[in-house]
């Protein structure tokens, strides 16, 4: 019920011009039309440009602004397409590789950290919690600078130098916090009672964790893996700062360089591929989450919250 539905019906009177105009804007008997307009206008503004960009990745011709017909050449046949252009292809492979390594390392680290933080009750836990939250609010350039200087100036880290390994390490560092926030949220909605019941029935702490807590945590773990994958693919700043040259460029870096130089629809194409990979990952994670938590309490609202705002 909208908040304006509570007003009493007005007696018949002639409406002044002001009342008529403001009546259109703030309609007491129904949806405020002005707000509807703004909301849908925003949605169009936010999404349509991207759709147009995707459309132009299928342009039959070299322009990114003038439509010349439909073609998949920028994905396949054209010598500058993703498939044929070694630079773009390598960037795609490298992005996927980084993302895979990121998931493999950040998720276990994040899950154990989440478990520890959610249950740890003594004085150290506040500091650890703060440390975990910090990367979420640090500007990427600050992280980029600090990691670059770490790997180039501070022994023994200088053995790592810039490059693929440095990029993985950087990605993991900002990904851990996302895993912790997601998994910890799920832990709070699960509560302690199942582990207590397991112990009551004879399960040692290890068994209780393994056979009861972890299965219940699985949807959050899978969802966080999907999100880490998506974040890693989309990452630009850290990848750029820790890159050591053409062999360690990622897709976002290629797009960045192309938009500043001479973009072709191949740029649109690779951007489209990136968007599809990311969205697929996120949707897959969401679906897994929903499939596993169906019927359990606290499922619906936490899903939305975890995938939308990181309500730390």
């Amino acid at each position, binding site marked *: 019920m909208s908040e304006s539905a509570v007003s009493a019906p007005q007696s018949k009177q002639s409406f002044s011009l002001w009342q008529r105009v403001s009546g259109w804007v703030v309609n007491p008997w129904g949806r405020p039309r002005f707000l509807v307009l703004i909301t849908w206008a925003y949605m169009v503004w936010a999404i349509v440009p991207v759709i147009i960009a995707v459309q132009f990745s299928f342009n039959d011709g070299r322009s990114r602004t003038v439509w010349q017909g439909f073609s998949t050449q920028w994905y396949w046949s054209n010598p500058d397409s993703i498939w044929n252009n070694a630079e773009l292809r390598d960037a795609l492979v490298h992005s996927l590789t980084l993302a895979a390594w990121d998931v493999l390392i950040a998720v276990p680290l994040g899950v154990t950290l989440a478990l520890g933080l959610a249950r740890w009750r003594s004085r150290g836990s506040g500091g650890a919690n703060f440390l975990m939250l910090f990367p979420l609010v640090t500007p990427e350039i600050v992280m980029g600078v600090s990691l670059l200087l770490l790997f180039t100036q501070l022994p023994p880290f200088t053995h790592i130098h810039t490059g693929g390994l440095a990029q993985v390490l950087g990605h993991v560092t900002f990904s851990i916090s996302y895993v912790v926030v997601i998994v910890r949220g799920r832990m709070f909605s699960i509560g302690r009672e199942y582990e207590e019941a397991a112990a*009551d029935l004879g*399960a*040692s702490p290890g068994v*209780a964790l393994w056979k009861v807590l972890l*299965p219940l945590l699985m949807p959050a773990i899978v969802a966080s893996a999907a999100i880490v994958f998506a974040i890693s693919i989309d990452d630009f700043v850290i990848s750029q700062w820790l890159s050591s040259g053409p062999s360690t460029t990622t897709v976002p870096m290629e797009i960045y360089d192309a938009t500043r130089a001479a973009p072709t629809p191949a740029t649109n194409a690779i951007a489209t591929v990136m968007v599809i990979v990311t969205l697929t990952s996120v949707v897959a994670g969401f679906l897994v989450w929903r499939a596993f938590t169906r019927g359990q309490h606290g499922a619906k609202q936490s899903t939305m919250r975890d995938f939308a705002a990181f309500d730390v």
Partner: protein
Amino acid sequence: MAGGEVKLISLVKKFGEFTAVDGIDLEMPGGEFFSMLGPSGCGKTTTLRMIAGFEQPTEGEILLDGENMAYTPPHRRNVNTVFQSYALFPHMTVWDNVAFGLRRQKTPKHDVRSRVDEALGMVQMDRFAKRKPSQLSGGQQQRVALARALVLKPAVLLLDEPLGALDAKLRKQLQLELKALQQQVGITFIYVTHDQEEALTMSDRIAVMSDGRVEQVAPPQEVYEEPATTFVADFLGVSNLMTATAEGESDGRCLVKVGDFELHAGRGDVATKGETRIVIRPERVRLEPSDATGENFIPGMVERVVYLGNANQVITRLAHGETLQALVQNTGDELHYRQGDPVKVHLPSEALRVLTDTGVAPVDESAAAPVG
């Protein structure tokens, strides 16, 4: 199944500055249905959790059949719990839930099967074996939780307000079922509740608790009819608590002055002197015509009559100012007294109890008419 005797010796639990359990001594013989009753925050759940092993006592001992298990982890105690929220594992079927404990004990497979089937049959949930907990109603989950705990044949079963989440009718039905189950299985049940009616219905003995201490331990009848303290009197139904000055014993009964009136209290600490409280249950209060006289008759005026269906609550303001609640059974005859009528209130001395602790202050009974 022998044993199942639980002894709590000087049990204390502190959470930082806060003392939840302040020195409890309890003895629960094997096979008894024992309830811990009290308002929220009185320490009953904390005590139960210490017996289960989820909290470690700050001081004291917890003996099971003579052995102190206060420092044994919960998974090694021969004690099982039915949780308030049932805590059935959501990712397992009903059958797997009940089998969980047996599998931890490395029971051979065919034994597991027969025992699980038997346990589910005992709570009439065998048809639901393949379902998941989310597909069951509250009452059904409750039964599965029971089966899951009982299948392990523990020495003691702990129940933490298990019927709290159910509606009134289902609760009454399950109370009877639980009591029957306990008598059938024969093990000690330790039951925590804040609902005094529940405790009175089901228990062999009740421990009434308040602020981390035990006020009284006794069978239901004794706790209700012969409360040891004002708290117990007031917690279990309406107590008609009144202030009085005791003047010592006079042929087996206590002489008490209530306002200007002299009453003879036949129960409680009859030899006491000084400031006391007296209590009488509403169903023992007799209403007499205003011109009648006799021992323990006090004049008053009917302030309100509340119709309860099976009885009438008559709230009377006595001559000295305090109010009293009388419960008059509905016999089909019309009630003689209406609002505003003068009346004499008769407090039979064999039902009037004097209590020496002044812990609980009398409440103006006319303000809120508790159903009891």
